[in-house]
């Protein structure tokens, strides 16, 4: 199986760094971004299996990323993580066909399992 590409967008640098360390261990190619704009640009060049994005970000936020990805790259799964454990946000994300939704603090094992499931589909 070809190496799956995972993208992580979060304005907290440590989130990207830790996710990258863990996910690389699983054999994924991981790219991290601190904001949505360069991330969406990168998506135009490369196909990613999963995009993990923060919900609340300055500029383009997580919902916008979800909508853009679902519209332009329907094959790519989106996993959302958020510091707002907010039901409204979760419902909104589900309606936007989010693959999974994690409140912070994120359990890396669960995230990995979710990514694995996403790629299997």
């Amino acid at each position, binding site marked *: 199986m070809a190496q799956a590409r995972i993208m992580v967008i979060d304005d*907290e640098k*440590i*989130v990207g760094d*830790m*996710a990258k*360390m*863990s996910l690389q*261990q699983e054999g994924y190619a991981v790219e991290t971004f601190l904001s949505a704009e360069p991330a969406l640009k990168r998506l135009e060049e490369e196909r990613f299996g999963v995009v993990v994005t923060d919900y*609340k970000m*300055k500029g383009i936020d997580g919902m916008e990323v979800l909508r853009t990805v679902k519209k332009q790259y329907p094959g790519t799964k989106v996993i959302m993580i958020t*510091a*707002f454990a907010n039901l409204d946000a979760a419902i909104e994300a589900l309606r936007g066909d989010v693959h999974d939704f994690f409140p*912070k*603090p*994120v*359990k*890396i*094992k669960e995230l990995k399992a979710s990514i694995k499931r996403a790629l299997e589909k």
Partner: protein
Amino acid sequence: MKIEKKLILSNIINGAFIILIGFFAFQNLNLVLTKLRFVEIADDLNASFLEMRLAEKNYFLYRDGQALVDIREKISAAERTLQEEKDNIVPAIGEADLQRLESLLRIYATTVAAVQRKGPPQLDQEERIRGAGRKLKEYADSITRLERKRVNEIIQNAKRILILSFWAILASALLIGHFISQKIVRSLRVIETMTRSISEGNFAQVANVRPRDELGTVIDAVNHMSEELAHREEQIIQSKKLASLGILTAGVAHEITNPLNNISMIAQTYDELYVNLGEQERIGLMRKVDAETERIRKIVMNLLDFSKPKDANPTEADINTVIQKTLTLVQNMIDVQNIGTVVRLEEGLSRLFIDEHQVQQVLVNLITNAVQAMSAGGRLFIASRPGKGGNSVEITVKDTGKGIQPEFLPHIFDPFFSTKGEGGTGLGLSVSYGIIKNHRGDIRVESKPGVGTTFTVELPIANGH
């Protein structure tokens, strides 16, 4: 002494003075009356004496025996008058003059009686009679003249004293009136100043002015009220702070969740990849954990600091630092609402003499209001710059929100006035106003519906204090 007592005392003194004057005038009138009665009697006596002398002259001219009888009759009449009117005469001229008059009359009577007895007089007898008669008449005349003069003097004197008293009483009444009204006006002025300063939110005591009269009592009452108000204001400030805290907590919780998540993810990665990590990597990760903990500590400290009730404690402070600290508390609340923030803090501003926490509370109130006015997103401008007069610093909090209706603008600093419906207590701006006024500063608002609102806070610089 109390104003009331002073009034009563001065009235008593004035009244006593008037009674004294009246008594004096009454005495004078009595004296004048006595003297006048005497003058009347003296006129009668004088007339009798004149007739005696006429009869005497007739006797010496015509040797008429009847004339002597006439003289003796007149003498008896005069003696009777002196006896009968003794009570009226003595008070007027005194006992000595009366006795002298009587003795002169007696000498005259004896002389006339001797002539009558011994027949036609010798030349020396004639001389004696004439002499006694003349002396009697002259003496009576002189007494009468003197008494008339005295009556005149008494009346003149009384007139002078009455006029003087009139001026004295008038002056004293004017002085007392002036003094009392000055005192009352001064009292009212002190109270006016006190209440005005209280209504501006300045609850300082007026301890150095404490007269022991009604003014003192009123000042005590106002001071007491002021103390109570200060106490209430503290409570309102604290309750308002707790209300702001509710709003802040949601944002702060989110802000804590991020470093918490970072720590959690580092721990999980550390655990999972332990064997693969080099020593330097492990140390690097632990340092990150430490840094993230510090992040949380700062947020929590800020929040605790803000929530603690504090007495006003002005210190020298840099306003830009205060603004920055406040922003760490409100940043998340701003971000959540999709609001862009533009912060322009001018460098090198003069230091202020302020209570940092109270000013921070004002800023939180203003920023919270701005954010709530931009529910559909917008931009928040926060700026600091030197004030126009050169002895103050100006802070502006500007939003691009829905603005305030012009008819509400005059009321927005009133307590319990709110345009937020259920969401607002109507205390935020009134408390902010009180805090800024306590700092001898100023807070102003400009707003256009649909365009936005700008709050300007002006605080005096430290050496201006």
